[in-house]
């Protein structure tokens, strides 16, 4: 009983500190999850994310980099959700890589995911060393979002642009051929 209480207190304390020190977080986060009711965030540094950009199975991956603070991203996000729903049976997987700030996971990102009932796979990239990982995503990307990659094991295309559903679907069809 004593132990349980102590654990409980410890949990309370650590929750509090978490919230307070969000600006002073260290950057050695590997993979962790942040839970808020039913939404679990899968948080990676770039090493953790990289495999998702280089799968070699038979699927077509549509990877979109976005954030809740990025207006053009939010505008096109429903198209990615629709694509995910409409092409699920055709070996297509949409992955939404959030670049939201850690101190806004609870206040912005999770509420957004819940409110819009996002069904696509969501990963969170939390890695401050952008100058190192941005060119690894694509040599031509200078860091403005949204950007999207569509790839399968044979082919890859990087899109530094926003999409309408029609344009996005047309691009996907190039990979479905």
């Amino acid at each position: 009983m004593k132990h349980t209480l102590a654990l409980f207190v410890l949990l309370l304390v650590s929750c509090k500190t978490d919230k307070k020190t969000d600006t002073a977080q260290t950057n050695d986060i590997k993979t962790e999850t942040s839970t808020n009711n039913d939404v679990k965030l899968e948080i990676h540094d770039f090493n953790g994310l990289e495999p998702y950009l280089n799968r070699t199975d038979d699927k077509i991956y549509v990877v979109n980099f976005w954030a809740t603070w990025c207006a053009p991203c939010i505008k096109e996000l429903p198209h990615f959700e629709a694509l995910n729903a409409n092409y699920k049976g055709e070996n297509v997987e949409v992955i939404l890589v959030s670049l939201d700030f850690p101190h806004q996971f609870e206040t912005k990102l999770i509420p957004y995911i819940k409110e819009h009932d996002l069904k696509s796979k969501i990963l969170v990239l939390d890695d401050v060393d952008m100058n190192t990982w941005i060119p690894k995503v694509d040599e031509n990307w200078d860091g403005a979002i949204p950007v999207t990659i569509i790839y399968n094991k044979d082919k890859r295309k990087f899109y530094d642009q926003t999409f309408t559903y029609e344009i996005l679907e047309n691009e996907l069809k190039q990979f479905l051929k």
Partner: protein
Amino acid sequence: MKLIKTLSILAIVVVVSAFSVNSKASPGYEVGDVATDFKLENIDGKKVSLADYTEAKGFIVIFTCNTCPYAVQYEDRIIALDKKYASKGYPVIAIQPNDPNVQPGDSMEAMKARAVSKGFTFPYLMDEDQKIYPQYGANKTPHVYILEKTNKGNIVKYIGAIDDNYKDASAVNVKYAENAVDALLAGNEVPETTTRAIGCSIKVKKSN
């Protein structure tokens, strides 16, 4: 035959320009290019140009704004850059590129309020016609251009981020912008001339 050729060239032009509407990136400057001067309104109502700074050795031009969370993370570090380098001949010139009709938090009034509350020591200019940032090739905030004043004009010496940790100033490993200015002041080559960072896209005036 000639007509077909002309038509097909026209068609190509139309297609290409249709695509470029969707593309966010404008080419802009590369390191070594001569940067344009400007005459933009400051928060005190006066127009500011690079040419006004007769004593300057160069400039730390930063496209930034009130509303982008990355820009906010860097505000204190932008102030620190000006405090450290203005007296050495490299003042910070901040330019707000967003259209306030699209992003109301970046209006001139909001810029004034922000500058006062944070104690900005440098000009905070509005790119009202949105003609300067595309020439530089800025496509996000914050986006830094370090210029060296020479006989040929203001030469772009560095393009990119302020440092390598937006989240925590005390955990920064490489101060890209400071390293660039330090090198220029010492008469050395800039060690890393371009870097990349995530930032907020620039909010462009709606055409109608």
